[in-house]
């Protein structure tokens, strides 16, 4: 067995026998360092090996390659809670080795679609722009699309800290955190946040930081999800998995693909990026007959804030919605800077309503969306024509949009709003609009929940005059 070529993270090994696709490989470089890899392709007696920890120090003549006869696995156990691992699942917190309950392939198996249970338990994150408008449910995968310099880490940490299921059946809770290519500072921020609330005891962390080998990142989210599946479906826990940053993950995939000289798809990313991402994101969910669940919050930074870039684009096609952060809101000092209009939670219809949140939730959130969209339009119009050119109704909507951003979207990093508080703010904002414009809300809810009850019509007329004043 000899290594012939070394190209980037790949080694071409000749004269191999009994090698299988996906097999785990141990590499020993001339300086004695030992690292891991796996088989990407095997053609007769030639194997293409991807080295997870890079090929620095390798040379063709003296590199020893051992095929281990099994795929890449992770030994999982309940004892992983509270521990920190590297990107390949080896403890890095100085603690003892994990005594695995069972070894699992990190690739998992697809959940049989007929065995899935539909996610419909509302998770209260305490963040109005999410709970009120784009609610998260157990078993959902809801990514945060962000850009460099935006507070996505704060938001993800806030969700991880505050997330709870209201009502009965709260169950055991755990957080699995997978860092791919982020800086030590970012990882440290999460650990500190989790430590402050003692949530670290319920957390498992997998860290592949910016200075760790890039190819290792391809294994990291799969390690994390293998641990999450064990906790969710063997230990009946409700697991929130934070994957950050998926952009670096995809770039690692591109690096390997380029080294293999594969035909590239858009922006040089491999044609199988969609399928590959699906094998990660689709591991979220609930399974019939098991108490636990996996909820995923992947974070990705959009290059140049471009939503049509292949990474956010393909992610959006797999995940059940997206929370998009907006630079303009951030510049105006609004936290969390959630761009409400393009954000979406596809599963919200199932997670809200009577017995889940409240009967008026769906109608109210539709109306808030519609009114905010119209307010934004009115403000754009005012920019061109001046405030005075707006109709009375448009003025009301414009004022509504400002109040909405200031009171509904804006909240503190440690402010945990209950769903009732969130809805109450929404209804309060409704008083800024003429009642005839509340077309998306059933009359009975307007009567029941709109502050002011019967006299509302006159009140809104007043409000209109106030906002119409220069």
């Amino acid at each position, binding site marked *: 067995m000899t290594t012939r070529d070394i190209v980037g993270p790949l080694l071409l090994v000749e004269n191999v026998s*009994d*090698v*299988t*696709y*996906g*097999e785990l490989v141990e590499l020993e470089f001339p300086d004695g360092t030992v690292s891991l890899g796996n088989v990407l*392709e*095997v*053609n007769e007696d030639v194997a293409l090996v991807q080295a997870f920890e890079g090929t620095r120090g390798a040379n063709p003549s003296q590199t020893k390659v051992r095929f281990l006869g099994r*795929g890449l696995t992770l030994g999982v156990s309940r004892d992983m809670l509270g521990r920190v691992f590297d990107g390949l699942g080896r403890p890095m917190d100085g603690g003892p080795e994990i005594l695995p309950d069972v070894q699992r*392939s990190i*690739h*998992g*198996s*697809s*959940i*049989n*679609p*007929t*065995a*899935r249970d*539909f*996610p419909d338990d509302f998770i209260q994150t305490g963040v109005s722009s999410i709970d009120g408008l784009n609610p998260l449910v157990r078993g*959902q995968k809801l990514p945060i699309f962000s850009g460099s310099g935006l507070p996505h880490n704060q938001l993800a940490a806030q969700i991880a800290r505050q997330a709870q299921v209201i009502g009965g059946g709260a169950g055991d809770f755990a957080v699995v955190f997978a860092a791919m290519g982020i800086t030590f500072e970012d990882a440290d921020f999460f650990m500190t946040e989790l430590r402050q609330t003692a949530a670290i005891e319920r957390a498992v962390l997998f860290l592949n930081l910016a200075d760790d080998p890039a190819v290792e990142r391809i294994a990291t989210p799969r390690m994390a999800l293998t641990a999450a599946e064990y906790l969710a479906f063997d230990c009946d826990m409700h697991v929130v998995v934070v994957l950050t940053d998926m952009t670096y993950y995809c770039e690692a995939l591109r690096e390997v693909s380029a080294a293999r000289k*594969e*035909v*590239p*798809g*858009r922006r040089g990313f491999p*044609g*199988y990026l*969609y*399928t590959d991402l*699906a*094998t990660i*994101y*689709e*591991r979220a*969910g609930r*399974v*019939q*007959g*098991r108490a636990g669940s996996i909820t995923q919050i992947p974070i990705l930074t959009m290059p140049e804030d471009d939503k*049509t870039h*292949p990474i956010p684009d393909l992610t959006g*096609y*797999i995940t*059940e919605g*997206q929370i998009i952060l907006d630079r303009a809101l951030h510049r105006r000092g609004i936290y969390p800077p959630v761009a409400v*209009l*393009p954000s*979406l939670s*596809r*599963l919200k219809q199932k997670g809200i309503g009577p017995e889940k949140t409240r009967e008026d939730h*769906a109608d109210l959130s539709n109306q808030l969306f*519609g009114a905010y*969209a119209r307010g934004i339009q009115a403000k754009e119009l005012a920019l061109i*024509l001046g405030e005075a*050119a707006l109709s009375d109704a448009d003025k009301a909507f414009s004022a509504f949009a400002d109040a909405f951003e200031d009171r509904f979207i804006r909240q503190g990093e440690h402010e945990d709003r209950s769903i009732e508080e969130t809805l109450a703010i929404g209804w309060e904002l409704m008083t800024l609009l003429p009642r005839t414009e509340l*077309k998306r809300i059933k009359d009975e809810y307007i009567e029941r929940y709109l502050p002011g009850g019967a006299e509302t019509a006159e009140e809104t007329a007043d409000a209109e005059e106030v906002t119409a004043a220069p």
Partner: protein
Amino acid sequence: MAELEQGRIVKVAGPLVVAEGLARSRMYDLVRVGDEGLMGEIIEMRGDRASIQVYEETEGLGPGDVVVSTGAPLSVELGPGMMGAVYDGVQRPLDALKVQSGAFLARGVSAPGLDREARWTFRATVDAGDRVEGGDVIGIVQENEVIALRIMVPPGIDGRIGEIGSGTYTVEETLGTLVADDDTEHALKLMQTWPVRIPRPYRRKLSLAEPLVTGTRVIDTFFPLLKGGAACIPGPFGAGKTVAQHQIAKWSNAEVVVFIGCGERGNEMTDVLMEFPELTDPYSGQPLMRRTVLVANTSNMPVAAREASVYTGITMAEFFRDMGYNVVLQADSTSRWAEAMREISGRLEEMPGEEGFPAYLGTRLAAFYERAGKVATLGGPLEADAEERQGSVSVVGSVSPPGGDLSEPVVQNTLRVVKVFWALEDRLAYERHFPAINWLVSYSLYLDKITPYWREAVSDEYRARRDKCMELLQRESELAEISRLVGVEALSPEEQIIMETAKSIREDFLQQNAFRDDDQFTSLVTQDRLLRVILLFHEKALQAQAEGAPLKEIFDAPVRERIARAKYTTEETDVFSQIESDIETQLVADGGEAGEV
């Protein structure tokens, strides 16, 4: 048949396996790979080396592993037991797999497409001695309360019925014989098989005339699809494509629905699986699953099976068409199918066409959509006085253009072959205008074909009203640009009324809430009625304005709120008459000096 040929793997690269020693196998033959017997299909041959796309995860396979050719192409089993079933891309019943391997799909498990144990009551409708040919109905299996499965002679054989008996049979048992003219005897069974990549034969294609009613107003009135036609829904993510498709599956007036979840989300399939059994088919009063076949190959299931799934689905659809049913097939999403083709093509190291897609992308897409259509089937008519048996397959394919870019190859190649385009737009979805179908970009080339039907079944003015509304919407988009620049006040009163009416069309007609019981379905007659009310307001508003009524009073007329809510009043025509008389009184009386008209 020759003994099964056996080869050995020489190369494994992802879902693609190359094996040698398969010189006698043919393109698209089905093979079994490795000790676990994973299913695969030959997609390229060089000498005795065959490239095989494997329908399952290939980890653990290596050179030297055995490949056995089955000598037959990938086929589906057609017969009783398909209704309500959930299959993967190669017709493995997912329920049966769940029993075998639990909640997670294990490798190498398999189960036949049709249950071998189930017994079905067969009632023969022909007698011994009758002359039959391929496609002729020889009996009925009442599969459930909704669907009567017509058992047909498989295409390609004809002769006299030797013997036949009513009774209960499994799908494999012989229920009768057919004796060909050369005295060869064919066993007749409840089940037949058909290779998925070959369209099932029919007598001839027919031109289309009847609408596929969906109850979704923007579709039925503005951009209708015909039974046997093909439509395309693109949708950048978040535009509500899936909801639109579910609506069609739930409400369309087809007897059978085939839904292919091709490379889409697992939870979405779960949603269908959990919701359809709960839903009542508005036409039969029975659960919707009774007339539905699902093919579920989610995005994380093997990519090669995704490539096969659309063929599996459409072959099943054609089978029901051949019985004389109208079938609607939904493929969600054909982009994922195209991507599967691209992935396999890349592994074959083929020279790519646009954006890495294979050069044959356009051909494959066109060939797939061409399997839609209304046909005169093989075999005799269902009723003695009819001339022929007719059935149809309507195809609604969704595409998921990257970044919402409609110029990409999958969309462009699809638009060349489909006649209806429902342009879902995320911008409309942000404004919560659902269904987010852009009325200015979408089109239906079936309008002229459908008009005679509308005239007969709805009203003489329906088409004219629809066109009038389209014109108003078009005018609105032009006026909106002007008003953006110089303000609404700069428009003439007539133009302002046009803007208001167009807004009313958008909000009170086009917008439809799929999750509200009183809004999700509107019959054609009620759709026409709604248009009538909206246009009456428009006409009266113009009239009142001309006679001196101030615009503000017209726009603030109390009846407008009633118009806005008219769509929720479903099928009660009283409500419409009431609104209409209110329009007459309010718009005129409020105008002061206008007086009676």
